[in-house]
């Protein structure tokens, strides 16, 4: 056996490095902007005086508070069911409404299905605006417009949801394989035809998954909207806390928490199944149904002959196997739930027309936006709101990175660790920020600190999930290739995994910042500092020109963050 002779090819002179291409001014600027944002976030943490010492000091308050919370005082079951039903009804109807409105908007907003530049632009503007205006602001406006009842809450949640749902749908449509659409075009199908018969079915899993995701978010937000009068558990909670009925309030908070976590887990499971991450088992009940179905109808044999019914007609209906029964039941159940929710939400359309006719007059009292004589104060509180958003994102990120990394199945040391951290993320995601904020207010006192902490923890839920997902979405075969060179686990992680996920990370972090600034506005209404206080107060004393001035300020901020996100993502891709 010959031993390998060490004839190694070697170039006598090393190859010179080619001139390093100069980084484009755009790239440098984008990195510069990100560093500025990071600096601003660090400054915010310092300026808001968020430090561990003061929190530890306040722990005595927490103990004192705890003693006033127990025993919890649960409302009677009947009442509880009624308010839970009311909350769920509002959220279901709002989410369905949002999906119905978002779908056409998304079709016009996606570059591959839009009808032209005008509609494309209009749809994109609708998406950006409805995302930028917090639901609380919609709620305030709609209460003014439609008066009391479920309608304002539903519209507020529904319209604001278009921002996220429409954007995700449009992105999903743009990522669809255009092949089937082209194939249908090649058979002579018209635009409506190819959209309905190729785009919509391809979109279906994403469509439902996104709707469920938004349902979770809307459920949590509806609690907050209780503070401005949207009915259900949120309103009861707000009333209990306002009247210092902490035993009742915390009992309700616990119920909301369980409801949110339950719904989050349920919809997570449904989503995982829809997106094909879970292989349907053939055992158990499904296998049983299949076996029965196989007896009902002759299973098809051979592909050369079309099957015929006993009457001799060509069979064009699938057999009732477990698959079809499940699908049928799923659709049936969904329709039933939505119908029930619509009835239960008790929408009153009788005054709708009259209210709509009042819109121009209403717009009159909102316009022109004016800070009255509060310009300085408002700008200052807006700055606090931005600081809260920045600081919360930074703190959230510090917590979310390790949690997200450990939750990613392809990075975690074992599947069990990954599952544990996934569960932690789901539980954190289930916590309504409002409840966190209230708890922190009790512990640390009023002001921006509790708001920041609440949002930071809330960020861990979303950001941790996004981090984990983007790690899992990396091409594992690339990791394999690097591993095949003999690299260690951590080398593979830095050289291949993290590297692939980096652009995604930046996009997610900026998205979280955007979310946090909007949430910071909302939490202001429970005493967490910032512009939210003035928003609620201005609407309470009917200074609607100030309300609209604040809306404009929030809008400008959110749009600026959005623009930064779009730009950096494009440049740093």
């Amino acid at each position, binding site marked *: 056996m010959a031993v390998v002779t060490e004839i190694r090819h070697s170039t006598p002179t090393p190859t010179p490095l080619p001139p390093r291409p100069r980084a484009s001014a755009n790239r440098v600027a984008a990195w510069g902007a990100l560093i500025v944002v990071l600096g601003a976030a660090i400054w915010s943490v310092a300026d808001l005086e968020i430090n561990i010492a003061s929190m530890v000091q306040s722990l005595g308050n927490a103990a004192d508070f705890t003693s006033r919370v127990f025993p919890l005082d649960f409302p009677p079951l009947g009442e509880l069911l009624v308010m839970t039903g009311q909350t769920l009804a509002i959220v279901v109807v709002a989410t369905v409404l949002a999906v119905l409105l978002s779908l056409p908007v998304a079709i016009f907003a996606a570059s591959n299905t839009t009808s032209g530049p005008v509609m494309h632009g209009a749809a994109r503007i609708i998406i950006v605006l409805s995302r930028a205006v917090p639901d609380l602001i919609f709620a305030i406006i709609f209460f003014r417009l439609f008066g009391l009842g479920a309608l304002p809450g539903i519209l507020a949640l529904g319209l604001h949801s278009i921002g996220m749902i429409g954007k995700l749908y449009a992105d999903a449509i743009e990522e669809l394989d255009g092949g089937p659409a082209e194939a249908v075009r*090649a058979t*002579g199908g018209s635009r409506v035809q190819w959209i*309905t018969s190729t785009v919509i079915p391809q979109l279906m899993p994403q469509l439902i998954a996104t709707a469920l995701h938004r349902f979770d978010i809307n459920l949590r937000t509806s609690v907050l909207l209780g503070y401005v009068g949207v009915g259900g558990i949120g309103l009861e909670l707000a009333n209990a806390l306002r009247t210092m009925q902490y035993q009742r309030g915390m009992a309700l908070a616990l119920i909301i928490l369980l409801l949110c976590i339950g719904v989050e887990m349920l919809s997570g499971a449904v989503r995982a199944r829809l997106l094909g991450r879970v292989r349907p088992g053939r055992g158990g009940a499904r296998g049983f149904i299949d076996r029965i179905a196989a007896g009902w109808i002759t299973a098809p044999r051979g592909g050369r002959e079309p099957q015929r019914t006993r009457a001799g007609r060509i069979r064009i209906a699938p057999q009732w196997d477990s698959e079809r029964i499940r699908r049928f039941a799923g659709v049936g159940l969904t329709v039933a739930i939505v119908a029930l929710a619509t009835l239960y939400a008790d929408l009153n359309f009788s005054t709708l027309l009259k209210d709509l006719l009042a819109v121009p007059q209403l717009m009159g009292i909102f316009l022109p936006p004016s800070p009255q004589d509060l310009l300085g104060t408002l700008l200052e509180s807006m700055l606090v709101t931005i600081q809260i958003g920045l600081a919360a994102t930074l703190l959230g990120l510090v917590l979310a990175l390790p949690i997200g990394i450990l939750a990613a199945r392809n990075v975690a040391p074992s599947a069990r660790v990954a599952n544990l951290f996934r569960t932690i993320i789901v539980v954190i995601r289930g916590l309504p920020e409002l409840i966190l904020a209230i708890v922190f207010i009790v512990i640390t006192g009023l002001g921006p600190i509790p708001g920041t902490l609440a949002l930071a923890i809330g960020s861990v839920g979303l950001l941790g999930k996004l981090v984990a997902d983007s790690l899992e979405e990396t091409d594992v075969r690339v990791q394999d290739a690097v591993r095949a060179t003999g690299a260690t686990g951590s080398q593979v992680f830095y050289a291949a995994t993290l590297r692939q996920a980096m652009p995604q990370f930046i996009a997610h972090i900026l998205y979280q910042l955007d979310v946090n600034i909007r949430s910071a506005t909302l939490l202001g209404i429970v005493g967490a500092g910032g512009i939210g206080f003035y928003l609620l107060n201005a609407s309470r004393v009917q200074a609607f020109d100030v309300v609209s001035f604040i809306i404009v300020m929030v809008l400008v901020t959110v749009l600026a963050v959005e623009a930064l996100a779009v730009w950096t993502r494009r440049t740093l891709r």
Partner: protein
Amino acid sequence: MTVAAANQTIPEPADIRFEGVTKSFGSVTALDDVSVSFAPNKINVLLGLSGSGKSTMLRHINGLHKPTQGDVWTLGTPVHSAGQSAMRRLRNNVGMIFQQFHLVESSSVLENVCTGQLGSLRGPRFGLWSYPRAVREAAMDQLARVGLADKAFQRAGSLSGGQQQRVAIARALIQRPTVLLADEPVASLDPVSSAGVIELLTQISREENLTVICSLHQVQIALSFADRIVGLNAGRVVLDRSAAGMTHDDVDGIYAAEPVDQRLAMAV
């Protein structure tokens, strides 16, 4: 082989004809002054390097592209100038199948075949049950023909590549087309499935008297399958002759020419 006379202004209704067709995408010239006709009821194969313009040529025949310059006539329709409704009518007579099959993977096989009929139906369709019964029955017939009647209610995505291509063929056949365009129909199939699909295409084109125009990468298959071979290089027709008696070497010239686009220029 009957090739229509070259300078006739309006071609025979059964013909397909390119007259001085140039197609540019920005700075890239995908087709460069192409004049060629295809006679009815024959199997024509387009050969050429990647980027030589095969797909572009096929897509001119049913108007998915319009020429930058020159005229394309298909079955008596002036594709270069036809309006929307004329185009829909034409496309209804021209079936097309693709390398990647282009099925809606989440829909059932039967529904995918039904979409082939959209050109002659009005209004949008939502799901299998929104198609008329006659269409569903016709779709079932076509599935039986390609040997997949038993898979009618499976998700299209759950089928193997070869089976998916058969569904795509059924979708094209339900139109009862006069012309069948196939853009590298077997390029993403393994050798066994390829052979099955090519056999099916041959058989159906004979049965239905179809005009087939098919682009291929596999010279071997082309030689055994085609009546006529058209070679493209850098958007120009560099070979056009009957396939009878041709050998591998006759075809090599198509590929020997210098690289035709940036991507290839870098690849070597």
